[in-house]
C-alpha cells in the first residue's frame, strides 16, 4: 500500500490488557459460527487471558435502534443491563463481539457523558424494570482491538504466514472495517475513520500486503436501511458490487472484515451476483474468500479450518488454504462436532467450489 504518512499513528486508544467481559453478537453465531469460539480460544489458550462468556447476555438493540424500531431510551436500559451483568462478574472491561454493538455502547456512554440526566434516567429505568444497578465500564474495546493489540505475541505462536507458499510473495488482502467501528467515533478506532489500521496492522504484521483500492471505505452493502427494508435490497447488492468491481484489478487473495454484517454480505452477495449475472471477481470463477479476523488469526495459528467454521462460508476457502499451504482433511469438511457426516450442501451454479 502506498503510504507516505502513517495517519493511523495519530489515532491510538487504550485497550485493556486482561479481564474482559465478552458480549456475543446476535447474528454472528449464525453467519460465521466458529468466529466467536475461536476468539475465546485464542484469548484463553494462546494469550492466557481471563474472559467471561456469560450465557445471560442479550441484544444491544443495535439493528432495531438503527432501524427506528427501538427507541433510544430502551437501548440505554438494555445496554445498562449488559453493563450490570459485567459488574456482577466483577469486571470492568467490556468487549462486544459485534461492531454495531461497539458503536451502540460508545454512543450510549458518550451520551451519558454529555447528558448526565440521561444516565440518571437510565439508572432509574433499569432499577424499576429489573432491580439492578450498574457502573459504566472502564474500557470498551472491540475484539479486533484486542487481537491487534496482541498481534506481535500471536505472531510468535503462528504456524503460517500470509504468504503464497509457491511464490514466496505476500498475499494481497482486502481489509474492510465495519462503519460503526470507525466512522461514528473516529477516536475509538485504531487508525481513525479514514485509514483504520486495526486489520491492516494484523495483515502487515503477519506477512500480508494490504490492498488500497478506490472503494476501500465504501459501505459493504449491509447498511441497515438498505437491507432490512426489502424494497431497498437492490441498493445493498449494488454497493457490494461496486466494491468488488473496484478491488478486482488488484487480484486480492481474500477479504477480511471485523464486522458481522460486512463478512456476511461480502461473502453471500458474491454468490447472488454470480447467480444473477454470471460474474465472479477472481480469475477462477470461485469468488474471493471472505474471512473474519478471528478466522484469519485461527487459520494462521494452525487451527483446523473446519473447527473455525470455514465450511459454512459461501465462497469456499480451499483455494486460500492451498495458497498458504495450510494442512486440512477434505473428508472432514462436513463432519459435525458429534463426528457424524452432515451431508454436502447443494453446489451453486456459477460460483465454483
Amino acid at each position, binding site marked *: 500500500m*502506498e*503510504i*507516505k*504518512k502513517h*495517519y493511523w499513528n495519530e489515532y491510538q486508544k487504550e485497550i485493556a490488557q486482561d479481564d474482559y467481559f465478552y458480549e456475543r453478537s446476535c447474528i454472528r453465531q449464525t453467519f460465521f459460527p466458529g468466529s466467536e469460539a475461536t476468539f475465546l480460544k485464542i484469548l484463553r489458550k494462546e494469550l492466557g487471558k481471563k474472559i467471561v462468556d456469560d450465557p445471560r447476555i442479550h441484544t444491544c438493540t443495535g439493528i432495531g435502534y438503527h432501524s427506528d424500531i427501538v427507541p433510544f431510551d430502551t437501548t440505554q436500559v438494555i445496554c445498562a443491563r449488559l453493563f450490570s451483568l459485567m459488574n456482577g462478574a466483577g469486571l470492568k472491561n467490556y468487549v462486544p463481539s459485534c461492531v454495531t454493538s461497539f458503536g451502540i455502547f460508545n454512543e450510549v456512554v458518550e451520551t451519558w457523558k454529555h447528558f448526565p440526566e440521561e444516565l440518571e434516567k437510565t439508572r432509574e429505568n433499569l432499577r424499576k424494570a429489573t432491580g439492578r444497578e450498574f457502573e459504566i465500564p472502564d474500557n470498551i474495546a472491540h475484539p479486533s482491538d484486542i487481537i491487534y493489540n496482541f498481534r506481535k505475541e500471536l505472531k510468535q505462536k503462528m504456524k503460517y504466514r500470509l504468504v503464497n507458499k509457491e511464490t514466496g510473495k505476500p498475499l494481497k488482502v482486502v481489509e474492510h472495517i465495519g462503519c460503526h467501528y470507525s466512522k461514528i467515533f473516529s477516536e475509538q478506532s485504531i487508525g481513525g475513520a479514514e*485509514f483504520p489500521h486495526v486489520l491492516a496492522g494484523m495483515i502487515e504484521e503477519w506477512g500480508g500486503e494490504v490492498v488500497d*483500492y478506490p472503494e476501500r*471505505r465504501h459501505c459493504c452493502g449491509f447498511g441497515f436501511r438498505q437491507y432490512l427494508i426489502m424494497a431497498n435490497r437492490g441498493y445493498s447488492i449494488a454497493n457490494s458490487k461496486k466494491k468488488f468491481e473496484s478491488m478486482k*484489478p488488484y487480484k486480492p487473495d481474500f477479504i477480511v472484515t471485523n464486522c458481522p454484517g460486512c463478512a456476511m454480505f461480502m461473502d453471500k452477495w458474491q454468490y447472488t451476483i454470480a447467480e444473477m449475472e454470471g460474474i465472479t471477481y477472481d480469475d477462477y470463477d470461485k469468488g474471493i474468500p471472505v474471512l473474519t479476523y478471528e478466522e484469519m488469526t485461527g487459520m494462521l495459528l494452525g487451527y483446523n479450518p473446519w473447527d473455525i467454521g470455514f465450511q459454512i462460508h459461501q465462497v469456499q476457502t480451499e483455494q486460500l488454504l492451498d495458497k498458504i499451504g495450510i494442512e486440512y482433511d477434505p473428508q472432514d469438511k462436513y463432519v459435525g462436532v458429534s463426528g457424524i457426516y452432515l451431508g454436502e450442501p447443494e453446489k451453486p451454479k456459477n460460483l465454483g467450489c
Partner: protein
Amino acid sequence: MSEKKIIIIGGGPAGLEAAYHLAQQNYKVTLLEKELETGGHIRMDVKLFPDFEDASKVRKQLSDKMNHPSIDLKTGICVNSLFQEGDKWCVKNDNNTFYGDAVLLTTGFETFDASRKEELGYGIYDNVITSVEFEAMLKTGKILTSDEKVPQRIAFLNCVGSRDEKVGNHYCSRVCCINGVKLAVCFKELVPNAEVYCFYIDMRMTGQQYEELYRTSQEKYGVNFIRGRISEAASTFNKRIQLKSEDTLAGLPLRITVDMLVLMVGMEPSKSTTLLAGQNDIKGAYGFAASLGINRNDNQTLKEGLFLAGTCKRPLSFRETIADAGAAAIQIMDFLKKAK
C-alpha cells in the same frame, strides 16, 4: 531624520511596504525577517491574480526598496519574544535584542496543512498536491504527474482548511476562489486540451476583475465549475485519483477520476503571529492577532505602540495587504508624532 525607531517583524509584502513608507518619511526602521530572503509567500507565486502580473517582478520591486538608507534589514532573525519595557518595545530572538518606539507586526500566515483533511489523501497519494506545490510546478513551466506525464484531467478543490467546521476554521480565506481560477487558467494555457474541474462551495468573486476572470475562465478556457465539496479521494489501480462528490446544483452524487487533484489550501495564522500576539494579550479568533476594531483602528491594538498589518490579522489578498501596510505606516507616524 526622526530619532524615533520602528521595528517591523516580518519581511513579507506588508512589512516591506510599510518599511518603505516609514523610511520615506525619515523614520529609522529595523525590519526583521525569519527567512534568509524577504517576500514571504509571494516568493512562491508565479503570477498574481487577477491580472497575471509577474510575481517575481513585484517581489523585486518591493525588495529593491529595502536599499533605502533608513531601513536596516536583518534576515534570519526569528523573533521569539516581544514585550514593552518602559516606553520602549523590546524584541528578542535567541541571540539579539532590539529596541524600538513602536512595533509593527507583519508576521502573516501559513498555509493550511492539507494532511489534516485525511479523506483527501494528501501525503498518501502522489497525485494529490496543494495549490502551493502546483504553483511551484508552474514556475518550472511544466505540470506533470508523479510518473512524469502531462495530466489530461485535473481537479481543483476550494476551501481546503477554510469554512470547515471539522478542522475548526469557520472563516473564509478570501483568496482561494480567485487563486483557483488563476491556476486553472494558467494550466489551460499550458495544456489547452486538458479537462479542468473546480469544486467549490460558493465562488466568492468579490474583488475588482475577479468576476470577469471567472467568466473568462469558462468562456475562453472551458474550465468547468462544480458546486460541491469532495468527500473522498482514493488512488485507482493505475495511480489516478478517484473523487467522490455531489453536484449540488444537479442534486446528484458524482464520481470522477482525474490525473491530479489540487487542494486550494487556505490561510492560518503563522506560528510567530500566534506566539507574539499571545505574549501581548492580543490573540484573536483562530490565533490571528486582534486589532482594536475591524471597521476603524484596524492597525492599532490594545497595546500602545504595537501595530498590525496584513495577514497576521486575517486572510487578505495581496492588494489588500499592500493597502493595509500603507495605512499602518500612517497610523504609526501619527502615534510617534503625538509621542513627542
